[in-house]
């Protein structure tokens, strides 16, 4: 692998951090005084600030600093966590994302506005102690403010610090630390060269210096400690307040007024060190768990594994005919290994839907504030795994469906109470796997789909005739028509009439289906059935003439034998009666012009395409077959009856039938036959 660009690595990492912060914040909205969550958010902000500064995202670091400070106060219990604060930080966090993406853009005005908001959120609900603290000390801890002399008075601090020898290798730049201290106030820095070795023994990559700093500042001790927060657990740091102008006041000689902040500082340090340590540990653990791999490499590997499996099946065939026992045992071993390898490979592309669901918590939180509806989002089955492509492509449709549920489905709290429901509406997002499909449902307990409005709207736009009878399901399906919207007014959320048809198209492009159910006054439910993966298909392998074909198992309803009388009778009519309903059938042998004589016992595979059931007459049903889908080349794009191809165990290629197109092609051929007489 080439060396990754450190900036882009930081961006990815920062994006992850922001996600963690966001989910932490959202968790906080549920339990405002959860200390673990507060700490997690603080740590996230803190890491973001630090690494941002390290990679030159100064605006980001500066901005994040303020949020961090606010959370620091919450963490220390000076101010309570409030919904206002969480919201302020949430919107601030969006701004951080912008700062991350365009570090050089003009963000100053927005930054200032957001910070103003943030400070109001912190101070407006501040404790009595915080309120007593002067406004200038917004970033000051209240306890320090009480113990310390009046804010604004200059105090002199003596700081001595030395870094571990290898600190520079970890990205710590002592110059940055010194610069940060200079920003705090008037600073006198003296380097202590006592530990610098002889030139011969000197390793230029190590740090041998220690520094003595005399700092005059009106800022509290915690601000000084903040400078070192990233290196604190490895470095030696000694901060002491010089009593007045008395230079001889050694750190140990703590006079009474200086003692209080000192003691406090020690406590803080002890508490902070494990926190930072924990954050580091968490990061390390994380990097050990996940490896980022470009998707095309996975695809390449998938191809290789496919080749291996084919080569292996040829080996098995060879070994089967050979008498050599040793060869056979090796071949069996390889068969097992390559089978396992293929299974592992298939799983590699799978991701839990949790990554898809997690983004909805924010959406619901925002929508809840925007619409004034109380909403509870419940997610179920988050560990269900789906192909990554499916997750990527489902994100937008799901956003739309959730918005629809909230905007159209859920009622306002007063309406809900009037209807005898809990004031808080529920949106349930669930996923579960059945066979080769995953079913994702979005369910709300709102007012349900208003059939009359749907009908009125459909009539107005000419989709149905005024007196046309429609089954309930047909009526509901109308909302998937392009340009259909029942929202009386176009809102920010939905009702632009784009969407449901796009949702349906996306789901169908994923070879999935969409169902809708709704009870007036009780809520609606939209279910998406999506195949687990786009790369693998469960199919029924059949033989027509000399060729093998795969029929997607999801379309297959049942298989039966074509009786002789049905076969003979079918000159005039091509349908069989199946449990009192007529099912037309197509002879694939004729459709594919195989030119072979039919097998004595032909089979009918009954498939369903949407509402229709069609029988396909094949010569032999070989069995079910899980297979990797290969796309057809450009030269065969005009052949619509096949959606792809797959490679069988013996290395030969079988074509995968596109059931919908196949039926259409069959109709076309029959029309031609009829025309020819």
């Amino acid at each position: 692998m080439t060396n990754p660009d450190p900036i882009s690595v930081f961006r990815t990492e920062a994006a992850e951090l922001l996600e963690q912060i966001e989910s932490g914040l959202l968790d906080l909205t549920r339990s405002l005084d959860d200390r673990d969550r507060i700490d997690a958010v603080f740590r996230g902000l803190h890491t973001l600030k630090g690494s941002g500064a390290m990679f030159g995202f100064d605006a980001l670091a500066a901005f994040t600093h303020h949020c961090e400070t606010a959370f620091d106060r919450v963490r220390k219990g000076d101010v309570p966590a409030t919904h206002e604060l969480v919201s302020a930080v949430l919107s601030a966090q969006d701004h951080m994302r912008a700062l991350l993406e365009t570090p050089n853009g003009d963000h100053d005005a927005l930054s200032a506005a957001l910070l103003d908001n943030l400070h109001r959120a912190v101070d407006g609900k501040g404790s009595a102690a915080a309120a007593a603290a002067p406004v200038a000390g917004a970033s000051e801890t209240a306890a320090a403010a009480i113990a310390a002399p009046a804010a604004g008075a200059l105090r002199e601090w003596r700081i001595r610090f030395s870094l571990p020898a290898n600190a520079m290798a970890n990205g710590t730049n002592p110059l940055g630390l010194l610069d940060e201290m200079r920003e705090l106030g008037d600073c006198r820095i003296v380097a202590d060269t006592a530990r610098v070795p002889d030139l011969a023994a000197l390793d230029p990559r190590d740090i041998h210096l220690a520094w003595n700093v005399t700092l005059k500042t009106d800022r509290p001790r915690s601000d000084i400690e903040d400078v070192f927060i990233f290196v604190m657990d490895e470095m030696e740091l000694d901060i002491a307040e010089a009593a007045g102008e008395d230079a001889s006041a050694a750190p140990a000689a703590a006079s009474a007024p200086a003692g209080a902040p000192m003691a406090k500082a020690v406590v803080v340090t002890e508490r902070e060190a494990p926190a930072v340590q924990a954050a580091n540990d968490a990061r390390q653990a994380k990097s050990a768990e996940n490896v980022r791999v470009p998707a095309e490499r996975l695809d390449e590997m998938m191809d290789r594994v496919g080749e291996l499996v084919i080569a292996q099946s040829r080996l098995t065939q060879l070994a089967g005919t050979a008498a050599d026992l040793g060869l056979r045992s090796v071949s069996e071993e390889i068969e097992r290994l390559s089978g396992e390898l293929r299974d592992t490979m298939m799983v590699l592309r799978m991701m839990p839907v949790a990554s898809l669901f997690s983004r909805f918590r924010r959406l619901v939180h925002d929508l809840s504030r925007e619409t004034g509806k109380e909403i509870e989002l419940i997610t179920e089955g988050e560990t269900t795994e789906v192909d990554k492509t499916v997750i990527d492509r489902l994100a937008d449709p799901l956003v739309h469906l959730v918005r629809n549920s909230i905007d159209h489905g859920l009622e306002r709290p007063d309406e809900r109470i009037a209807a005898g429901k809990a004031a808080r509406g529920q949106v349930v997002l669930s996923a579960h796997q059945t066979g080769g499909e995953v079913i994702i449902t979005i369910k709300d307990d709102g007012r349900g789909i208003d059939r009359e409005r749907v009908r009125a709207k459909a009539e107005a736009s000419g989709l149905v005739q005024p007196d046309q009878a429609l089954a309930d399901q047909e009526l509901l399906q109308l909302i998937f028509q392009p340009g259909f919207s029942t929202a009386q007014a176009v809102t920010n959320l939905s009702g632009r009439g784009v969407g449901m048809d796009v949702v349906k198209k996306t789901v169908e492009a994923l070879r999935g289906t969409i169902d809708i159910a709704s009870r007036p006054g009780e809520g609606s439910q939209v279910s998406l059935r999506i195949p687990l993966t786009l790369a693998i298909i469960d199919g029924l392998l059949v033989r027509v003439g000399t060729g093998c074909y795969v029929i997607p198992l999801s379309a297959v309803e049942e298989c039966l034998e074509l009786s002789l009388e049905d076969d003979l009778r079918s000159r005039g009519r091509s349908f069989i009666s199946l449990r009192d309903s007529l099912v037309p059938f197509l002879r694939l042998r004729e459709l594919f012009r195989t030119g072979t004589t039919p097998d004595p016992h032909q089979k009918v595979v009954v498939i369903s395409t949407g509402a229709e059931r069609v029988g396909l007459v094949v010569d032999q049903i070989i069995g079910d077959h899980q297979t990797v889908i290969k796309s057809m080349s450009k030269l065969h794009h005009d052949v619509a009856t096949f959606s792809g191809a797959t490679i069988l165990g013996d290395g030969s290629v079988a074509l995968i039938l596109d059931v919908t197109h196949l039926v259409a092609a069959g109709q076309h051929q029959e029309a031609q036959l009829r025309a020819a007489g």
Partner: protein
Amino acid sequence: MSEAARKIDHNTTWSETDELSVLTFNLNGETFAIEAIVVQEILDLLPETHVPGSKPYVSSVINFRGKVIPLADIRLAFGMDATDTTIDSRIIVIELDLDDEPTLIGLRTDKVYEVTTLQKVASEPPPSVGMRWRPDYINCLVKRGGEFIIIPNMHAIFSSQKERNATAQSPN
């Protein structure tokens, strides 16, 4: 393809150098050559899978190292008869840019000869009369020894579907 476009094609094939490295092969007794640079691999015959409903000259697919690629018979594009396979029959796998997308195509051949170098001075654009083959399918003819080697224009053969359909429907 227009006359002018063909000229350009003819010139690009013989880029700056006056020589062209090609792979020569036999189709129905005629010697053809394709640029060696587009050739991926020469294969023995593989099991083929017929694709019902496809165009006759790309009527089947083969499994080439785990990829499903079309197997083309350019004899049909040149109006030759498809002959039975012999012990010398081979498949040449080439990579072509079709609509800016690299596409692997297998070519059925009766015999593969050698990789050789052709001289530009010996080349001629296809004559406008005296050929039953569509002139735009031929890049140029190269004299060597007492015979002509045909350099077919693969892009024209594989990407001019609409044009071909139009000519197929016209009376002649």
